[in-house]
């Protein structure tokens, strides 16, 4: 359930329009051309090798459909069919197990997701393909590192992303507020907004995974990049005081202070975006994958700004940055060669524009932001990632093992629901990490 929904929402947001916008009647009638999943869609010639792709972009994602069409034209010997799968985490493993799975899949990187599949022997090793297609030359090393488990590479990580605070510039202007420079400033902004009956921050944690990003932001800023890396690698305890504080501030103190909407655990991620679109809430702490949604006038007409969550007690900030999902190939892929060719095509020069302009997504390749017509927010993101990657922190959940993630996601809901303290959550996180160390599923990301 958790992270897999992340990538589709922008599509159905665009698709459905915001609830608050009354013009949305227009936005939601366009079902979009079928994407080839329909029985009737262009029956390919018999001799073509079929490649079935599961991804999380939403059925009508224009950008990715464009890439598929281009690939099928450029490679007449193959035929790619893509299916949007939102419940991947629920079904991918059993499908692959059953031999009913896809040839190529777009799934979350990290030991908690693709790592589980790799360890179960369900993925095809790609080390040879990296050689064959010289992917190392233009794909960033991190995209390979994050998709490698126990020394074997299984995929190509995609979607460079950062996490920070989006804010409604109109509301900020009207209230005479500015993007804060320190955590205390941030709290003052929240206080001011609350006094005007505006929800300072919209937060929906029904889907559980958004809490992981919140924790990533605060632990990066409080514990610092190196300590966070050490903790993720199992070399520093998660119940150190810095991490306890990283739970206490956003999950307890700011909840008690009323800086979020009510019913955080009952509101879905999408509904929290609605609160932001409709102007009921002034800020959202989330990732750059929402840029497409936040710059879409069908959703929100107010201008949206962005700042990294500010410094806490004058510490150096380490905003989360990393990869979202990656492409992997199933062990039983009918045409491994075709799957390699498709992956190669996905990150070739001719598709960069589709990723950036069509989907507001940053592929893991060397590129110049000025060559593309993209929003300022996206340009800002690209430049930040290119220039400051060294000092940035981590999205924890794509780096940690599955039992740790389960613990983290369930536990944060309990902390928000006041059935668990920050200290208890920190202790449980550490216990989960110790269990993972024993099982050997921890990923070492220390330099």
């Amino acid at each position: 359930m958790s992270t897999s929904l992340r990538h589709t929402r922008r599509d159905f947001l665009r698709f459905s329009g915001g609830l608050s916008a009354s013009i949305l009647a227009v936005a939601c009638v366009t079902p979009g051309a079928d994407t080839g999943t329909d029985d009737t869609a262009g029956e390919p010639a018999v001799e073509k090798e079929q490649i079935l792709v599961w991804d999380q972009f939403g059925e009508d994602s224009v950008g990715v459909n464009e890439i598929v069409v281009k690939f099928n034209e450029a490679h007449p010997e193959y035929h790619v069919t893509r299916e949007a799968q939102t419940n991947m985490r629920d079904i991918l493993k059993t499908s692959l197990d059953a031999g009913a799975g896809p040839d190529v899949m777009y799934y979350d990187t990290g030991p908690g997701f693709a790592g589980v599949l790799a360890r179960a022997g369900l993925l095809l090793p790609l080390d040879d393909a990296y050689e064959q297609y010289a992917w190392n030359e233009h794909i960033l090393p991190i995209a390979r590192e994050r998709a490698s488990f126990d020394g074997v590479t299984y995929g190509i990580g995609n979607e460079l992303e950062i996490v920070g605070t989006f804010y409604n510039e109109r509301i900020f202007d009207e209230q005479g507020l500015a993007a804060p420079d320190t955590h205390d400033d941030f709290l003052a902004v929240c206080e001011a907004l609350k006094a005007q009956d505006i929800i300072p921050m919209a937060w929906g944690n029904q889907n559980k995974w958004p809490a992981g990003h919140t924790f990533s932001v605060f632990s990066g800023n409080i514990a610092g990049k190196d300590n966070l890396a050490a903790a993720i690698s199992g070399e520093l305890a998660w119940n150190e005081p810095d991490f306890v504080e990283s739970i206490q501030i956003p999950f307890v103190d700011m909840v008690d202070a009323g800086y979020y909407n009510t019913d955080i655990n009952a509101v879905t991620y999408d509904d929290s975006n609605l609160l932001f679109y409709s102007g009921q809430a002034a800020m959202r702490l989330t990732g750059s994958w929402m840029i497409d949604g936040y710059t879409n006038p069908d959703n929100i007409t107010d201008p949206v700004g962005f700042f990294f969550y500010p410094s806490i007690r004058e510490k150096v900030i380490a905003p989360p940055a990393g990869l979202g999902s990656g492409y992997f190939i199933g062990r039983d892929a009918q045409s491994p060669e075709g799957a390699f060719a498709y992956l190669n095509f996905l990150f070739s020069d001719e598709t960069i524009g589709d990723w950036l302009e069509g989907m507001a997504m940053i592929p893991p390749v060397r590129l110049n932001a000025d060559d593309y017509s993209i929003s300022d927010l996206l340009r800002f993101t690209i430049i930040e990632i290119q220039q400051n990657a060294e000092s940035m922190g981590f999205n924890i959940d794509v780096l940690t093992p599955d039992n740790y993630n389960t613990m983290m996601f369930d536990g944060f809901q309990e902390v928000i629901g006041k059935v668990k303290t920050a200290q208890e959550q920190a202790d449980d996180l550490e216990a989960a990490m110790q269990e993972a160390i024993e099982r050997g599923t921890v990923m070492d990301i220390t330099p």
Partner: protein
Amino acid sequence: MQNTSTVQEWSRMGARGPRQRAVRDRLLRYIGSLLRYAILIFFTLVCITPLFWVIASSLKTTGQIAANPLGFPTEIRWDNYIEAWTVGRFGKYFKNSVIVSIPIVTFVILLASLAGYGLARLRFHGSNFVFVLFLLGLMVPFQSIMIPLFYILKDIRFLGTYWAMIVPSIALGMPFSIFFMRAYFSGLPQELGDAAEIDGCNEFSVYWRVMLPLAGPAVSALVVLQFMGAWNAFLLPLIYMQKEEIRPLVLGLMFFRSRYTQNYPLTMAGAAIVMVPIVIVYLVFQRRFVQGLTAGAVK
């Protein structure tokens, strides 16, 4: 008729003098029946209001939902249904549900009535053992076998095909259906079969020509019950029917909802599409439903 007398008895309690009694009687009866219908109607509303609300929501635009979530739609938007049907591919899922339900119902009835007949009318060595074996199946939940069944279905290459739902559902339907058919056949007079046998029918034709037609009511109750079970099944297809092309309606609805989490009217239209056929079947064959589901309970 006997019920009316009960009412009178009921309301007579606590009465004293002859004249007061008459007045109190009438008053009590009046209040009693007011209360009675108030409760009955309250639970009627509890049952159907949510369903009406789903329909009402499914005919709104997302804007109307936000503006007035509880009220009736100001302008009816049938497009939601068209859209759900097309982009939600409910047409395909509907077909899948039919494709799996028909063989499940047919074979459950056929196999269970054969076995039920054999167990009821043809005493043979081990027949009691066989019957107990089937009865044990009534006590074991599907969850007890779902994990190995996955790997069995995988080994025989059923996963990802309609068979993955059809065949296990038939097996799972056996215990109750056999129990049910056996009870029914046992209740039929013994002489019927004997007479036919004397006329030269063999065992099978006694069953096929004489007994099965007599079991019409039981069979139709079972048909309805099994159909409902197959149509509404969730956990089984969730595990064994994941491939997009073969998903039945209920599973399709679940995936549909997570694809369009933001478009509530569309989700409600999807729910209505799944709900309406079974409700219609229910309303038409109500009596059979009730018979099927209560059968065995009051035996």
